[in-house]
């Protein structure tokens, strides 16, 4: 009896010793199938080069699920080491969740090869909290194969709103019943980017953090709702109950990918993921009116951040440095998290056709951009409620005028909060 106990003890200690040699980093991010594949390849490369460090990905399908999970884990004291952040990084810095990375700069983290604007975007209150995964831009995406099949002309990359509407009308006459010229991108369940773009185009940006104010008036928001009401009434976008059938949270729930719309909206870093979900060829064009107003913007796609309570912050930073700066990682990660902001990563080049399409798009629309507008506080609530108001107008429950007033009140309320 005693013998077997001691044997078990020895076995246990051996096992403990084996495990002790490997340090495990937990990396939480969100993304679709293609991002998971690319990320795993990068992890494999890192683990091959760094024996003794294991990286466990913890993946969610979308941002909502990701942050629900991460928030709960952090509150329970078991947060992941590396957390992918989006535009809400400010909220997390304010809540004191993230580790300032300044002391690793120059030693473990090489920032000298990263574009200064990308470093600036991850710097909050004078401290570097997030390393940009790359830049990305909002874009319209169209289904080139579908247009070829129905014999419709391809759209120009840069158009005015008038040209754009005329193009949609010309498309409508070519497309079969049940296929619409454009998705209803006016407001999306998880995303208010097209509205954000239009407010910049209209000269009434959503939010100014310095003055804690909005330039969006009820009249301006009404104008936006009327713009899309016009598209809807003329069959250029689907009726509301058809649009509501597509959650538009990723490629799998996209009306464009389902083949029911010719034009949709994505961020450029999503192109590869969307392209992977369809056999049809996709191409990028600008939002209308960008050339004249420079209303587009380049955004840090996401950030890699480190949990303040990580037990292995140095290793976490080392892994991040590998992801953003090493040519090997750049090759497998591609443009999935944005076009890299690191010179060493870019030097690795790309043979991928999607990556090249994005680069071409960035070359045209880069000059049609200006500095990003500040994010409205409580981003998630803004998106969710804006979407609800937008749907009320779409379903004809309230007038665009009432909707405009509600949007204005919403922004004001969130700013005051």
């Amino acid at each position, binding site marked *: 009896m005693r013998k077997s106990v001691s044997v078990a003890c020895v076995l246990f200690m051996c096992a403990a010793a084996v495990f002790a040699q490997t340090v495990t980093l937990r990396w939480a991010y969100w993304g679709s199938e293609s991002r998971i594949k690319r990320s795993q390849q990068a992890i494999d490369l890192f683990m091959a080069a760094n024996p003794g460090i294991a990286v466990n990905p913890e993946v969610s399908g979308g941002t*909502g699920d990701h942050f*629900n999970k991460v*928030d*709960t884990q*952090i*509150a329970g004291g078991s947060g992941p080491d590396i957390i992918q952040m989006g535009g809400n990084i400010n909220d*997390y810095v304010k*809540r*004191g*969740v993230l580790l300032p990375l300044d002391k690793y700069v120059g030693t473990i983290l090489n920032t000298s090869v990263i574009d200064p604007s990308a470093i600036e975007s991850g710097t909050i209150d004078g401290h570097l909290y997030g390393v940009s995964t790359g830049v990305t831009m909002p874009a319209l995406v169209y289904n080139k194969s579908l247009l070829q099949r129905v014999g419709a002309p391809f759209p120009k990359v840069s158009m005015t709103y008038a040209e754009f509407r005329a193009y949609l009308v010309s498309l409508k006459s070519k497309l079969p019943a*049940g296929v619409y010229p454009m998705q209803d991108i006016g407001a999306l*369940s998880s995303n208010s980017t097209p509205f954000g773009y239009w407010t910049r185009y209209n000269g009434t940006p959503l939010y100014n953090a310095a003055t804690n104010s909005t330039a969006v008036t009820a009249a301006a928001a009404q104008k936006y709702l009327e713009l899309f009401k016009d598209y809807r009434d003329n069959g250029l976008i689907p009726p*509301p*109950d*058809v*649009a*509501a*059938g597509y*959650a538009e*949270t990723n490629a799998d*729930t996209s009306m464009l990918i389902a083949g029911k719309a010719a034009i949709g909206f994505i961020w450029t870093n999503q192109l590869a993921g969307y392209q992977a979900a369809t056999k049809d060829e996709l191409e990028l064009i600008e939002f209308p009116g960008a050339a004249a107003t420079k209303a587009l913007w380049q955004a840090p796609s996401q950030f890699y951040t480190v949990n303040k309570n990580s037990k292995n912050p140095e290793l976490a930073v080392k892994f991040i440095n590998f992801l953003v700066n090493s040519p090997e990682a750049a090759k497998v990660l591609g443009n999935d998290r944005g076009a890299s902001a690191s010179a060493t990563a870019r030097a690795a080049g790309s043979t991928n056709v999607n990556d090249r399409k994005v680069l071409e798009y960035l070359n045209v629309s880069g000059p049609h951009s200006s500095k990003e507008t500040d994010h409205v506080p*409580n981003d*998630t*609530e803004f998106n*969710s*409620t804006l*979407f*609800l108001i937008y*749907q*009320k107008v779409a*379903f004809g*429950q309230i007038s665009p005028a009432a909707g405009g007033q509600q949007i204005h009140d919403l922004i004001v*309320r969130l700013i005051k909060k």
Partner: protein
Amino acid sequence: MNKKARTRAIRENLSSYAFLTPWLLGFFLLTLYPMLYSLYLSFTEFNILQPPKWVGLRNYFIMFIGNEQFPRDERFLNSLLVTFRFVFISVPLKLAFALAVAMLMNQRLKLIPFYRTLYYIPTLLGGSVAIAVLWRRLFAGDGVLNTILRSAFHLNPPAWISNPKYALYTLILLSVWQFGSPMIIFLAGLKQIPKEYYEASSVDGAGKVKQFFAITLPSLSPIIFFNLVMQMISAFQSFTQAYIVSGGQGGPLDSTMFYSLYLYLKGFGFSEMGYASAMAWVLLIIIAALTALAFKVSGSLVSYGSGE
């Protein structure tokens, strides 16, 4: 002697407590403590990541009253309305359906055990994510149902699941479809009704319908009542179906924004855990009140038999 007996009693008590410890720990740490903590949180503003801030009754104030500074939460009232509609339509339908099937299953047929199993299956599957996804495909604008309606009947049906007029009813249908557990309970109840009642009444010339209202329903009334209370409580807490079918949005137009779904959105989506906790307590009070009401009303309607 007396003393000895007492120490033995104490020892027995202690050992029973020792055996109960795992359960007691679970109760105090995993049930009672979180409940009391959520009661505390309901009086605070809490974003999960920073310590809660005491705000008194403000969360409750925003739900029901509201003022200029803290406007009333219209989405809360809407979610309450949606949930009530769901409960008051789905529960009676489900019970009626379960009773009807139970009466069919109460006959002497060859394959009855097989059918009973078969009809219970939806209950096992119904709460699952896969079925919710299936439901979405069935009732979508270009889903299975509409494809059939279009090709076979040349109709032009709406997109059931993404139309605010019909979306809730697809969820009610999903709930009614899971009639298995009340059906089993009804079946057990039907077996308890003495055959002599039916024999005697048929001698007196009572038809099937008359028998149903005069014998079956009154004899089953305690069981109907039990099923009603249980189903009502679980219907108030429905979450999974609405979450999956509506893609987590409670849409379209908040038409499937169940109470628990909105609670989840507030707590985890908008990081307002204090408000979400307050909502949880309001739900508890609503369910408790309705259950109490059901017991009160039942006094005159439920007969527990006069005994032999």
